[in-house]
C-alpha cells in the first residue's frame, strides 16, 4: 500500500490543484485514481451580496485536528495519500478556501475518503468564517446543523 500519509497545510496563499495532484503522485505508478473537493467563496450569503470573507483558525489545534483526520481517513479507506490545504485570512468571492485530495488504488476508496475528509473537516476542524457584506456589516457564519448530521453518517472517529 505504501501510504505517504497526510499532507496538511494552513496558509493564506492560494493553492494549485494540478501541482498538488502531481506532488501527491510523484514518483509512483500504483495510484488508480485521485478524488478532490475544492470549496469556494460564494458571492452571496442568505441572499445578500458579500464583499469578502475572513477565516480565523486556532493555530496548533488546526494542524493537529487536520492531521488526525487525515491519518484516520488514510487508515480507514486505505488511501495511498491525502492532501488537505485550508486557507485563512481575507478571501474574496470566487476564491478557493479548501482543498481535499485523496489517492487510492481504486476510485471508490478515493471518492469515499474525500467525502469523509470534507465532512469531518467541516464539523471538527477549528476554523471560523466571518462574512463582510457589501453594505459594510459583518457577521460570523453560523454552523450548519446539516453538517453535523452529514458527518454523523461516518460514525465517531
Amino acid at each position, binding site marked *: 500500500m505504501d501510504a505517504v500519509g497526510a499532507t496538511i497545510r494552513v496558509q493564506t496563499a492560494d493553492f494549485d490543484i494540478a501541482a498538488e495532484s502531481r506532488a501527491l503522485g510523484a514518483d509512483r505508478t500504483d495510484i488508480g485514481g485521485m478524488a478532490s473537493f475544492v470549496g469556494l467563496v460564494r458571492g452571496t450569503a442568505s441572499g445578500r451580496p458579500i464583499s469578502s470573507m475572513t477565516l480565523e483558525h486556532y493555530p496548533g*489545534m488546526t494542524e493537529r485536528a487536520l492531521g488526525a483526520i487525515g491519518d484516520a481517513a488514510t487508515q480507514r479507506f486505505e488511501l495511498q495519500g491525502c492532501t488537505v490545504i485550508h486557507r485563512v485570512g481575507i478571501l474574496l468571492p470566487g476564491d478557493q478556501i479548501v482543498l481535499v485530495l485523496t489517492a487510492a488504488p481504486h476510485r471508490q476508496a478515493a471518492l469515499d475518503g474525500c467525502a469523509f475528509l470534507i465532512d469531518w473537516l467541516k464539523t471538527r476542524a477549528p476554523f471560523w468564517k466571518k462574512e463582510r457584506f457589501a453594505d459594510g456589516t459583518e457577521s460570523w457564519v453560523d454552523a450548519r446543523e446539516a453538517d453535523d448530521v452529514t458527518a454523523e453518517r461516518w460514525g465517531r472517529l
Partner: protein
Amino acid sequence: MRILYFAWLRERVGLGEEQVDLPAGIADVAGLIAWLRTRGPGFEAAFAQGRLVRCAVNQDFAGPDAAIAPGDEVAFFPPVTGG
C-alpha cells in the same frame, strides 16, 4: 493557565488570549466557565449563550465535565465553520 478565545467569543470577551491563575476549587470546564462569567459583562455575554460555546483542553475537544489543571491550554470558541 492559558485561555484562548476565538471568533465572536474573542470579540465579546475583548481579548484573544490571556494567562490566568486558576482560583482554588475549580477542577473542570464547567467550573471554569462559571468563574469566567463573573469577570465582567463581556465574559457574561460570551458565556450566557452556553449551548453554542465549544471548548478544547490542550487542543482536544472537551465537554463541560473535562478536568482542567494549572498549565493546561483551554480554548473557547463557537461551533466550527471551516471547509
